[in-house]
């Protein structure tokens, strides 16, 4: 496979995963504000999503509208979908026609003026749901119709690198916003919304019914391999696709890649218990570094980037 194609597939995977994660977070955030318990700092909403927008004085719906539909903002959902589609366009001969159609329809949908008007003057929740449904359709089509080859591996590298990054960053934001493991009262309730945003509420209840415990939630985000949005799960998947790549093309590059993935996995598996805030921040910083190391390895050995 061409290095350029591999890189474009990797970024297509990243942009789609980013859109999916952000949409779920936006939906939950909107609901939490309606409930009177926002789980993010309302004035920093653009910052949370890595978006640069100076107009912080806007009303909530207008701000969320920007987060989703403003094409001038680099990381808005519409910009992500546009970029994912541009990547898909340049690799159309490496993805199935079904996947291309799904992504193209998503792009047409998010540009639909009626949908955008509905966000401002109708029911924002149904807009979020419609977009999330389109994400689910994309992932379903990817899973059911995309052949398992190099292209699929790079798409999934992108998907799980992005997921791990999002989980890590979002967990840090929540930790800081809610006073960490010392959260009490309303602060505790924000952890519940955080679980919703991460699609982890039901799973958390299975073992912790009736007990919102920030430390346990944080652990679920980091370590629990049964929870698909945990960092451990993402690392496991990255490891799996690294193995697959190495099976197809056993060489030094794939050995190098497996080594950096192994290091990241080991750091998570053999971590110490949290003793203090500093200790936790140090750890998340280290994890972030390992994620970047995997990306650097892909850039150098597979995408031909220096």
């Amino acid at each position, binding site marked *: 496979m061409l290095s350029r194609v591999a890189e474009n597939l990797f970024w297509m995977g990243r942009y789609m995963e980013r859109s999916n994660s952000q949409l779920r977070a936006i939906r939950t955030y909107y609901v939490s504000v309606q409930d009177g318990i926002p789980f993010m700092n309302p004035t920093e909403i653009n910052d949370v999503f890595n978006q640069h927008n100076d107009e912080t004085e806007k009303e909530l719906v207008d701000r969320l509208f920007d987060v989703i539909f403003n*094409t001038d903002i680099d990381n808005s959902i519409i910009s992500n979908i546009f970029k994912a589609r541009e990547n898909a366009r340049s690799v159309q*001969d490496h993805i199935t026609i079904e996947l291309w*159609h799904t992504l193209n329809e998503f792009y*047409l949908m998010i540009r639909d003026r009626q949908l955008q008007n509905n966000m401002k003057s109708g029911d924002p929740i149904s807009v979020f749901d419609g977009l999330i449904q389109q994400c689910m359709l994309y992932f379903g089509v990817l899973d059911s119709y995309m052949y398992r080859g190099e292209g699929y591996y790079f798409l999934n590298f992108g998907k799980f690198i992005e997921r791990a990054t999002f989980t890590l960053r979002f967990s840090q934001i929540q930790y800081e916003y809610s006073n960490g493991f010392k959260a009490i009262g309303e602060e505790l309730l924000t952890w519940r919304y955080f679980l919703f945003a991460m699609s982890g509420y039901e799973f958390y209840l299975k073992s912790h019914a009736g007990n919102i415990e920030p430390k346990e939630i944080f652990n679920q985000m980091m370590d629990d391999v049964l929870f698909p949005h945990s960092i451990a799960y993402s690392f496991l998947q990255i490891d799996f696709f690294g193995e697959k790549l190495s099976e197809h093309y056993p060489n030094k590059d794939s050995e190098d890649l497996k080594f950096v993935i192994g290091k990241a996995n080991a750091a998570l598996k053999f971590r110490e218990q949290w003793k203090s805030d500093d200790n936790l921040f140090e750890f998340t910083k280290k994890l972030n570094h390992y994620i970047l190391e995997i990306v650097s390895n892909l850039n150098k050995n597979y*995408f031909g980037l220096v």
Partner: protein
Amino acid sequence: MENLSLLNQYKLEQGVFDEMITDGLVRNHYRNFVHSFQQYSTEAINQKDALAKKLFMSQGITFTVYSSGEGIEKIFPFDLIPRIIQANEWEHIEKGIKQRLKALNIFLKDIYHQQFIIKDGIIPAHLIYTCPYFLREMVNVDVPFDIYTHISGVDLIRDVDGSYYVLEDNLRTPSGVSYMLENRNISYRLFPNLIPECGVRPVNHYPDVLIRALLDLSNRQSSRPTVVLLTPGIYNSAYFEHTTLARLMGIELVEGRDLVVENHIVYMKTTQGLRKVDVIYRRVDDEFIDPLIFRSDSLLGVPGIYHAYRRGNVAIVNAMGNGVADDKAVYTYVPEMIKYYLNEEPILKTVPTYKMENVDELDFTLKNISTMVVKKTNESGGYGMLMAGGSSEEERKNYIQEIKANPRQFIAQPIISLSSSPCYIDGKLQPRRVDLRPYAISSPGGIEIVPGGLTRVALKEGSLVVNSSQGGGSKDTWVLLK
């Protein structure tokens, strides 16, 4: 109940050959279609029309126009009424195109080698040497199997008597074939069962024919040589076509930056290192293909590819330097070429063409400018053209000045009225002018033409310009089995 009003509303243009109607009656080869079409209510046809537009959009069969960082998607307008060609007519077209391409291919081989056609006084030498697309770099370069015109899209038009004329041969990088394929896919959905009922010949094997021709060009002893399609990139208006063809043929779609030349061998940069490339179906024009030889500011090509080609280490499709045969002044000599090289009479007619460097012909053109179309010899896509009816006095004056300043670069032709074909516009059938671009593939095994092609249509009432860049659209082309 038959919807007779559709046909009754169809008003023919005077002095124009209509594809569907003659002497007030539906032509035989249109009857099956018209009968079935009349079973639909106006509302049902409107729904089909809307469905066609939706399908083109949702499948991403679009041009992208970029402005302020965001792409604006535009579809190539599609008219749902097919253009139907009867079997014997197609046979005539097929024979005529094959004959023409055979002669043009020999011409290109000749002009870049011994130049017998010049020495024998058939074509003046200065005509060749003043053509900007005659590449001196191709002189004495042997191309694989002596094939230059691997893929061509010959533009055909019909005059008032219904006879076919060749307007252009398009021997460089003709586009539009993906629309031929997609138009057929849309027709299946708009008119269930009608295509088999009418006995229409299939076109969807075009990618198979093309990949076989490309594989045959490799000089490597391998069952699966590496064939790639070289595209200028996603910003090219024909990018959809490039991806479609690459996908349907199962080959890599590469950009210039994906290829590298080392020791006169072309490689592509893959995740597993460099991989040798044997055949390149390029959709990048000659002038951009190698910045070391042609335009040095080109980022679309591959440095060193020309020398790899010259050494025979890679096959490039179509060959470089074909532009000389596309020159509209050289076009006038194609009938002579056919006689000279093949000793045959031309099957397809050529539009009478006046060369502006000839003083008498220039005078004649200026006197009869209202019935002429003047074109630049090396432009295509409907650009650089003066049609008396569609221009102001001022424009005409400026254009004539341009002609006088550089007469070699202009030719004039009488305006051919172009045949009309029914189109469904604003809820009724209306005649619009059409041309036809069949696609021919030349391989070591011979020339193959997929029965069909792209029918382009001038959607503006009275317009004779079918180019997509000038408001043209397209329709499916049905060639009947019998």
